[in-house]
């Protein structure tokens, strides 16, 4: 739109100086929307020039990385921004990790279902239970550490305790692993029983890993615990001639003991560091 009428520069100046009554200001504002020349006069007289800092803020926002699917859904659930970013950067909280986990447990569950009623029924169920107990530990191992975590160096330099980061991520990994394993268990024959069978070992192994992580790197702790678990399961089935010996009542009570002991270690450690280092 072109107009032949233009506002008086003095009027524009008093508008820019915030020294104009509302009615004339409104009429000038309406004119400014359609008149490039008067806008330029205003820009040259405005006392409060939009600073370069404002523009730099815009550029910063344009350069900021986009939040991924996991991070966006976490923010949607009300998780705080920095926690969401830390969780989203966890290698074992990626969609690819979930897929791998679901694939491993799903095929084990399918194998157990297919072989139901045959000679292979018990070995395949054994395989599924061992795997289901092991997946959260693997997730925790892959959650934090040099060479695994893309944000490891940043995390080490950040004013946040490393173990707190590990706990946050381990809690997220554990809950997602439990959900995936539970869903896979639904495919099992008599799943009501088998869920209870792997749950305590899974919790016990994860907490033992976290407790051991005080003295060694999380991945070393996880490997040690995982290896110990495989040995226990294997020795149990060989020594007692019952393949599922590692899931029977006495063994389950032992896992409960491990959970209690590890929790105690973790709580004491958390209490010892709490307050000394800002979280």
């Amino acid at each position, binding site marked *: 739109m072109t107009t032949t009428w233009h506002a008086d520069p003095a009027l524009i100046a008093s508008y820019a100086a915030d020294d*104009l009554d509302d009615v004339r200001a409104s009429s000038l504002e309406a004119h400014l929307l359609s008149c490039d020349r008067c806008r330029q006069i205003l820009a040259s007289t405005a006392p409060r020039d939009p600073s370069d800092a404002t523009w730099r803020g815009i550029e910063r926002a*344009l350069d900021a990385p986009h939040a991924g699917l996991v991070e966006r859904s976490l923010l949607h659930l009300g998780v705080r921004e920095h926690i969401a970013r830390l969780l989203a950067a966890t290698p074992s909280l990626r969609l690819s990790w979930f897929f791998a986990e679901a694939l491993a447990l799903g095929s084990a569950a399918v194998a157990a279902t297919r072989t139901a009623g045959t000679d292979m029924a018990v070995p395949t169920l054994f395989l599924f239970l061992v795997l289901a107990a092991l997946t959260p530990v693997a997730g925790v191992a892959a959650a934090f550490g040099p060479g695994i975590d893309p944000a490891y160096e940043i995390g080490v330099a950040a004013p946040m305790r490393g173990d707190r980061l590990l706990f946050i991520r381990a809690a997220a990994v554990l809950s997602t692993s439990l959900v995936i394993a539970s869903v896979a268990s639904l495919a099992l024959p008599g799943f009501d029983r088998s869920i209870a069978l792997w749950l305590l070992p899974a919790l016990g192994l994860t907490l033992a890993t976290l407790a051991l992580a005080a003295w060694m790197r999380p991945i070393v702790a996880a490997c040690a615990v995982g290896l110990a678990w495989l040995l226990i399961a294997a020795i149990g089935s060989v020594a007692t001639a019952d393949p599922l010996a590692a899931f029977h009542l006495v063994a389950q009570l032992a896992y409960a003991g491990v959970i209690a002991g590890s929790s105690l270690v973790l709580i004491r450690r958390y209490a010892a560091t709490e307050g000394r280092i800002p979280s």
Partner: protein
Amino acid sequence: MTVRDDGDDALITAVAGGDREALAELYRRHAPWLVVRLSRRCADPGLVEEVVQDTFLAVWRGAPRYRATGEVPAWIWGIGIRRLVSRLRQRPAVFRWWRRDDVMVSAEDEVLIGVEHGDLGAALNNLSPELRAVVQATVLDGLTTKEAATLLGIPQGTVKTRAARARRELREALA
């Protein structure tokens, strides 16, 4: 920032294609008046700065959806005033009341009133500041009742009754 001669519509098209220089040019052209106009409605310079940033980020993201239905400045103002309203919704009210009752009229200023408003200008000036603020927000800034209520920091019902009262007074003044 380099200066470009393109029209605003061409700049928006370039912004839609991811041209950051075009956004810089739009900012150079339109941020100054946007700052002044927003500052008349919000006394907090920091908030105005945030709103200006929000606005140009929205221009960046919204450029592909821009249809050349109106003038680019009007489009930018529409974004800006709504960003201001939504920022005010998140914060306690820091808006500035339409304060000035005393009207200074200089000789050259008379002209604009004559051209743009005539009797309407005088009638608007005779409204109480509270009523004028409502007319300004709803009629001139084109806000909804809800948005105007947020901008002015008053309940929606108050906006409605004041708008009705302003209409009545204007009708009487212009009759």
